[in-house]
């Protein structure tokens, strides 16, 4: 492969750089946009300022949306992480057919187009009078996050050598002690990684939440969605930067956990 002609190599490198730039650069455009001083966005800003950060954090509605997002993501993770971990443990012990059917059920919310998931849950929430309720949001976000936990924990369970539980049993350990001392420590990074994915999934979720949230439970992405066509001030860019900041932090955490998970596996 190394004998690719020089011209081709240069072309391939440049194409790669261009595509990478196309992937990353547009996302970063909101960062300078958020530092505009003017009341409309101009890129790059003619005058720089943190004015609109102040506006964002002074605005009770934006703040409430942010807090709602964090609370919802945390609660959905609290549901999805343990439920998904148990499910992953069950899948490794289940017979082939049960495992196939169950994992099909768990993964279905990932495969069905999100818009269909959204309007389906919206309709049922309307019918039982739970529309706009935090419970409905938490449970539906947990369903969307569940596959990530099941997959992550499933991967880390592959790192558990089948001989370890046998060895532990041979040394006199009962099932609970084996889980606590052998299985759990090995899959912990996988559970944590799944929890990070859960949190992220819920925090970034927009489509389902657009339908399901009401004024009091609205989240940051939904608030962004609602105002994006009405408002042209940089406060939206600030909201976007806040979301990016949180995503980056979780991305770094997720990568660190994934690496630990990979080492154990």
């Amino acid at each position, binding site marked *: 492969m190394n004998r690719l002609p020089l011209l081709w190599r240069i072309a391939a490198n440049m194409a790669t750089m261009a595509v990478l730039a196309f992937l990353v650069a547009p996302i970063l455009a909101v960062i300078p946009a958020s530092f505009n001083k003017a009341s409309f966005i101009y890129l790059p800003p003619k005058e720089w300022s943190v004015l609109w950060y102040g506006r964002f954090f002074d605005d009770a509605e934006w703040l409430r949306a942010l807090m709602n997002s964090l609370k919802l993501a945390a609660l959905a993770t609290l549901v999805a992480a343990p439920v998904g971990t148990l499910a992953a443990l069950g899948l490794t012990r289940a017979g082939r057919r049960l495992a196939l059917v169950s994992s099909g059920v768990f993964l279905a919310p990932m495969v069905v187009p999100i818009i269909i998931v959204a309007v389906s849950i919206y309709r049922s929430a309307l019918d039982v009078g739970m529309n706009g309720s935090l419970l409905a949001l938490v449970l539906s976000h947990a369903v969307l996050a569940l596959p990530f936990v099941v997959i992550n924990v499933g991967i880390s369970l592959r790192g558990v*050598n089948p*001989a*370890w539980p*046998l*060895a*532990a*049993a*041979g*040394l*006199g*350990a*009962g099932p609970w*002690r084996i889980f606590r*001392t*052998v299985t759990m*420590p*090995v899959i912990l990074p996988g559970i944590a990684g799944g929890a990070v994915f859960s949190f992220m999934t819920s925090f970034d979720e927009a489509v389902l939440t657009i339908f399901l949230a009401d004024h009091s439970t609205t989240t940051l992405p939904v608030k962004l969605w609602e105002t994006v066509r009405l408002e042209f001030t940089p406060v939206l860019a600030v909201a976007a930067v806040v979301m990016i900041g949180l995503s980056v932090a979780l991305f770094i955490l997720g990568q660190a956990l994934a690496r630990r998970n990979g080492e*154990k596996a």
Partner: protein
Amino acid sequence: MTETTGLALGLRALTKRYGPVTALEPTDLDIGAGEFLTLLGPSGSGKTTLLNLIAGYTEPSGGTIRIGARDVTRTPARHRNIGMVFQSYALFPHMTVAQNLAYGLEARRVPKAEIARRVEAALALMQLEGYGNRGVQQMSGGQQQRVAVARALVIEPDVLLMDEPLGALDRQLRRQVQVELRRLHLKHGRTTIYVTHDQEEALVLSDRIAVMGKGRIQQLGSAAELYARPANSFIAGFIGESNLPEARVTSVAGGMALADIPALGLSIEAPVVPGVAPGAPARLMIRPEHLRLLPDAGEGQDAGEGIGARIIEVIYLGELTQFGLETSRGAFLVARGMEGRGLRQGDTVRLGWSPRDVLIVPDTGP
């Protein structure tokens, strides 16, 4: 070693079937206290099944298992007090060496101070002093192997089981560890069942060897017994090497048989083992070291006429030389010895052997 002060382990009609497949035919086996017994056999012979049944990792389809006076047939693995050394060692990767060793003692709720004392003693026994706080993944393969043995021994098991514990080591290290394991057994004196497919390992380590094949114990005995009087052609070929030409037995009397050997074109009288009968398939066992090469001109002294053969292969093995031979009837034989240094590929020789060095054994098929 064989200070058989009592019965450590007794199996009666122990059987394992998976649906229509029988992994272990009904098997009886008694192992004396302090004995080192090896289950030797190729893969699929049932040796690992037998080990897992004894350890309690597999439930038997029938029969009983006793450890000392206890019937443990239905006892879960964790209450059997058996020490197991896995082929992969199965060391817990997230624990230190000392934590691995302490694991079984903690499960038994041994007091902390005693755990520390016994872990230290086990580390010393395995010459692992000072390694207690190491992570197991920082240890070399040989060290991990010793940690695995230490972890199994520290719980003072009634029986020590070892499943191909040297399989992951390279050849040179394996020889060294064999000797160490032998010495170690003399020190701790625990009843040990050792599974391997390597006959050399079995010969070095064991008091007795149970050769397994096709889901049953084919023969049980000391290394010397198995080598000198193999019960059938399977064992003759598995313990040491053998030339095994077909033998057509015409009569058996007083431990001797008359047989035609078509591949060599002669009839001989030779000792037999039980199970050889006229008409039943049988083979003549001639060990390579018992086959003598005589210059073509000379007369075979022991074997009467001697058989003409051509050397088609000469392999120098250091102190010994191995010859591949083709008889005038087209049969292929192997001879090995210190003589015949001057012989070359293509030379013709006459073959001879002493009648008391050969044996006719039942043919178990390929």
